[in-house]
């Protein structure tokens, strides 16, 4: 077991082999209990399925987990020399995108699975964009099912090229991406270099995972604590509650709540019902600030240091990808933006640039409209004060989901904030 921990998202289009790959990784790293493997091998043989179906094992494990009392979502774990990995198998449907953006940060890095015989498919694009929006640092791209395409180098190169275009479209730095030809089913280039791909001399998957950069601790950023609820507790007074996203809160700190624009000194902090002198990222806390009344602050406020207060946007520029919209999006459109604990109607004031999916370059300046599948840079004006941060400075507070008509229609990340 290693010291360092990483959350690894497995993303990719339906049927491209995500579960099979997870099964293979668990198997190769000795993380599937032997009895489970034996049992499923026997069952598979009885049913006359020739090979050993990892996806089948994973599905059965899922059933076992579902029968359990509680499900630890981050259940599947394996280790390399450098890291203990926890796998997050991302939901396929886009209606879960909002959860991934506003929920607890889940993944440090990701493996994108793209089937060699199918290439880039709709969910490949959505997941790549999501990875970028969620601040995933590095992407390992497994070009899977190489066995189906007879391990052909040409086919591999074509798919690599297709994925590279896609990365460019959403401005994902292609230097932070590595490509590996694999077969999750046959085990090629997972734990051992494969003889079937003699033309490939790069890293195999487990090496690439082992060589991922260490996740950066978010404590370097200033304190940002989005307020979830505000209570009045007898004997204490006003108690805001929330989860610290970045930075540290200490008793005695002078803090500011934005956009409500009030502040004071932190008197007490409690976590797990115990008084603590300080709290860190990931901690769920309730605290009390001198001079703050229940009506002074509200859900959606962000608490930060008084001398480095959370930004409040008059307008902000963002990169968005439209995931689904029945018609077209034009300037003036005002859907609801979900960012941290805040939900605010915002107007798309201007559509500044549209990206060309083929080249990743700006395809059109000031286009009249954008539609499903488009990536664009837009300027947004919140209809009520909204605290949000540039994603390059505080990624935890720099992304949002756009919802309308009961659907998540787009996701985005903040490029620049023009403060009030």
């Amino acid at each position, binding site marked *: 077991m290693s010291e360092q921990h990483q959350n690894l998202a497995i993303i990719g289009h339906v049927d491209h082999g995500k579960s099979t790959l997870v099964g293979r990784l668990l198997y190769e790293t000795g993380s599937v209990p032997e009895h489970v493997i034996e049992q499923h091998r026997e069952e598979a043989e009885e049913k006359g399925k020739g090979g050993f179906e990892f996806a089948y094992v994973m599905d059965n494990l*899922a059933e076992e*987990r*579902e029968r*359990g*009392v*509680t*499900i630890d*979502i*981050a*259940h599947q774990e394996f280790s390399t020399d450098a890291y203990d990995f926890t796998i*997050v*198998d*991302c*939901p*396929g*449907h886009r*209606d*879960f995108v*909002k*959860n*991934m953006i*506003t*929920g*607890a940060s*889940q993944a440090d890095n990701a493996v994108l699975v793209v089937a060699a015989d199918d290439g880039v498919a709709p969910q490949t694009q959505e997941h790549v964009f999501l990875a970028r929006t969620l601040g995933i640092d590095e992407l390992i791209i497994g070009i899977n099912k190489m066995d189906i395409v007879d391990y052909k180098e040409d086919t591999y190169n074509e798919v690599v090229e297709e994925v590279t275009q896609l990365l460019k479209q959403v401005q994902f730095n292609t230097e932070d991406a590595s490509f590996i030809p694999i077969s999750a089913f046959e085990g090629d280039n997972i734990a051992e270099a494969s003889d079937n791909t003699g033309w490939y001399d790069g890293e195999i998957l487990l090496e690439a995972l082992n060589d991922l950069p260490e996740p950066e601790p978010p404590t370097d950023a200033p304190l940002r604590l989005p307020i*979830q*609820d505000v*209570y009045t*507790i007898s004997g*204490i007074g006003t*108690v805001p*509650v929330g989860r610290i996203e970045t930075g540290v809160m200490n008793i005695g700190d002078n803090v500011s709540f934005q956009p409500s624009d009030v502040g004071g000194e932190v008197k007490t*902090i*409690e*976590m*797990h*019902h115990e008084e603590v002198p300080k709290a860190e990222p990931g901690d*769920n*806390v*309730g*605290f009390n600030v001198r001079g703050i009344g229940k009506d002074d602050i509200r*859900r959606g406020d962000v608490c930060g240091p008084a001398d480095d207060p959370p930004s409040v946007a008059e307008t902000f520029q963002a990169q968005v990808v439209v995931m689904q919209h029945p018609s077209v999006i034009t300037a003036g459109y005002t859907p609801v933006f979900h960012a941290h*604990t805040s939900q605010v109607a915002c107007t798309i004031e201007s559509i500044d640039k549209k990206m060309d999916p083929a080249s990743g370059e700006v395809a059109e300046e000031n286009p009249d409209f954008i539609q499903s599948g488009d990536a664009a840079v837009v300027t947004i004006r919140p209809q009520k004060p909204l605290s949000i941060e540039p994603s390059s400075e505080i990624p935890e507070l720099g992304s949002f989901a756009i919802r309308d008509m*009961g659907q*998540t229609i787009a996701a985005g990340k903040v490029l620049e904030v023009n403060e009030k």
Partner: protein
Amino acid sequence: MGKVAAKIKVMPNSPEIDLDALQERLESSLPEGAKINGVEREEVAFGLVALYPTVIVPDGSGGTETVEENFTGVEGVESVGVENVGRI
């Protein structure tokens, strides 16, 4: 279609609330097709206790939206938020 487990954080509207009763009300508010696989509790601060039901929903259209809406309407609930989601 696969299934998604969503860990949902439910904050009560006061420290005095009967958590067992609240938990039952959450159970009976579930939309069709969703089920609760156990509920964890976390003491937060100043007597407030958060409930974390793990809800299983289909990996399909609608996501966790109806569950969130229904939970929000339950008596004694202050706020509802999805902590994390993952396929099982």
